[in-house]
């Protein structure tokens, strides 16, 4: 019975963390879905978000959940500027040039963090860290529950944005068919900047949530970039629901692999899954459209 409980505990923990993973991957997926640009600086942007939330807490005692909207807004603006200023000229360039551009941005972001905050892990320590909710025999960390709920709320907002607002619908139209969007006169450049803004806001918000669960150091960035890739490919590159479900799947699989095997083997499972999905179902487990 002990094992069954530990198992259930691991799954719930994985599901809660997976929601935040999903939100992070959602940002990558939105950007790729619309612009077909792979954001190799995604984990780096995430880590910047984590640092900002940590800074707000250290300097002013603001909880990351409170500073989240401000961080999201700031990341939206920064993402918009980055796209409009740097990335737009690269949209129709070969993939390896886009890769080099985003790699340069990634190196800059992560090392600015390193210079400013140092290599040590920085975490948000508070009383609430140790709160928990009990559901029957299950014990859930309060911070994880809050982070997951916030992630769900943000994903809901995004869904509303993409289905209810004019700009959101235009972005989806541009994602479905670039040419026809041009034909009907959508300002594609502005939409692209907007999209990169939304994607950055997503991952910035995910960063603010993640810092409540995991302490941050600059070297996490590359890991998060890879993790986001794994999730969106498994879920279906360009698919919003796919990113969220992929996040849950990877969150749970990591937690369960950590329980059953050695924790250090947990990402082996993720990469194995990535290889299988790439080969057998490149449109992703939850994606509808073929992904090429």
């Amino acid at each position, binding site marked *: 019975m002990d094992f069954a409980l530990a198992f259930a505990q691991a799954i719930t923990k994985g599901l809660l963390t997976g929601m935040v993973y999903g939100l992070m991957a959602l940002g990558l997926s939105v950007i790729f879905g619309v612009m077909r640009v792979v954001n190799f600086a995604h984990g780096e942007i995430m880590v910047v978000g984590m640092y900002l939330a940590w800074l707000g807490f250290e300097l002013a005692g603001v909880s990351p959940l409170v500073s989240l909207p401000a961080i999201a807004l700031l990341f939206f603006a920064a993402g918009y500027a980055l796209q409009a200023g740097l990335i737009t000229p690269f949209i129709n360039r070969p*993939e390896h040039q886009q890769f080099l551009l985003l790699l340069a941005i990634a190196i*800059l972001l*992560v090392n600015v963090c390193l210079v400013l905050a140092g290599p040590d892990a920085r975490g948000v320590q508070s009383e609430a860290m140790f709160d928990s909710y009990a559901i029957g025999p299950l014990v859930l960390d309060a911070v994880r529950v809050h982070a997951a709920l916030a992630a769900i709320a943000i994903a809901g907002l995004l869904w509303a944005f993409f289905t209810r607002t004019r700009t959101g619908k235009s972005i989806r139209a541009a994602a479905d068919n670039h040419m026809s969007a041009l034909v009907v006169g959508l300002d594609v450049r502005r939409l692209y900047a907007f999209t990169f803004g939304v994607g950055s806001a997503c991952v910035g918000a995910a960063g603010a949530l993640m810092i409540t669960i995991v302490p941050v150091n600059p070297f996490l960035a590359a890991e998060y970039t890879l993790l986001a*890739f794994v999730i969106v490919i498994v879920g279906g590159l360009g698919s919003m629901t796919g990113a969220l479900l992929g996040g849950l799947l990877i969150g749970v699989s990591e937690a369960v692999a950590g329980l059953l095997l050695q924790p250090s083997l947990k990402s*082996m499972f993720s990469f194995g899954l990535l290889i299988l999905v790439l080969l057998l179902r*490149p449109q992703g487990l939850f994606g509808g459209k073929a992904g090429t």
Partner: protein
Amino acid sequence: MSIVRLLIGGATPRALALLAALLAFLVAAPAFLGPYALSVAILILYFAFVGQAWNIMMGFAGQLSLGHALYAGLGGYIAAGLFFHYGIGPWVGAFVAVAVAVLAGCIVGYLGFRFSLAGVYFALLTIAFSEFTRIAFDHWTWAGGSGGLFLKVQGGVTDILNLRGGATLFYYAILILAVGAFVLCRLLLESRLGRYWLAIREDAEAAQAVGVPVFRCKMIAIAISAALTALAGVWNAFYYNNLFPETAFAMGRSIEITLAPIIGGLGTLFGPIVGAVVLTGMGELFTDLTEHLKISGLKQIFYGLALLVIVIWRPAGVWPWLAKRLGVEERGR
């Protein structure tokens, strides 16, 4: 057609003179370079060599691999492991290392190309295999696990048979590898296979329609590329005398391999060499500049900025631009 003509056909006398001067300089270099300059030269040649190997995949055949650390890591680990455990020297070990790396390359290639993964999807497959192997090596005790594998350092002994010795030995070893790879690439490019690669890079469907066996050509590209990269790994393991999965198979290692050819000029023969000079030169310059500031990360910031400048202003690479200045352009193709 003679090999000589294949090698130098189409090159202007001016280009040949420059090339001969460069080669003479490289052969004589250890005689007058100090230890620091020699170590920089070694680094440049290493990146030129491994970049040339990667360039076969991406620059020639157009297949973006971001997991080349897999072949370098396998090569290094196998040769070092054979030497460490059984005393088998690297000249024999290299054959085993190359065989294993080629096998790994063929597995990645077979899966990627059979399932027609292209572009980013193929790149992610290569990353996944490299990361998967990294974690496997973390837990493989024969290879030392995450604690690493260390080769004994014998001060002052030069033992060419076991590739043990000082910087000069390693300089000439990597020089021979780099020159060999350059010559090999030139010969490949001037062959039917090379032209087929370029056609595949430009448009695989059109290439196949004019009779190019696309799958087979891609497989040969990844096999040759993996073999050369494995040799770089063997050299690397014996030069540094230590191996850790965290660095040998890291994504950072894979990215490092791609930078010289991208910055120098994809698909060109001199691109990886020029790129290696630019990159290593920049790296050393920024190390000097930031050394006394004692701020970790500052060097990387300069590095990132320099990359940004290059990709924005010289997206086709430094070499095509430089070649025009020198009046020695590679023939348009």
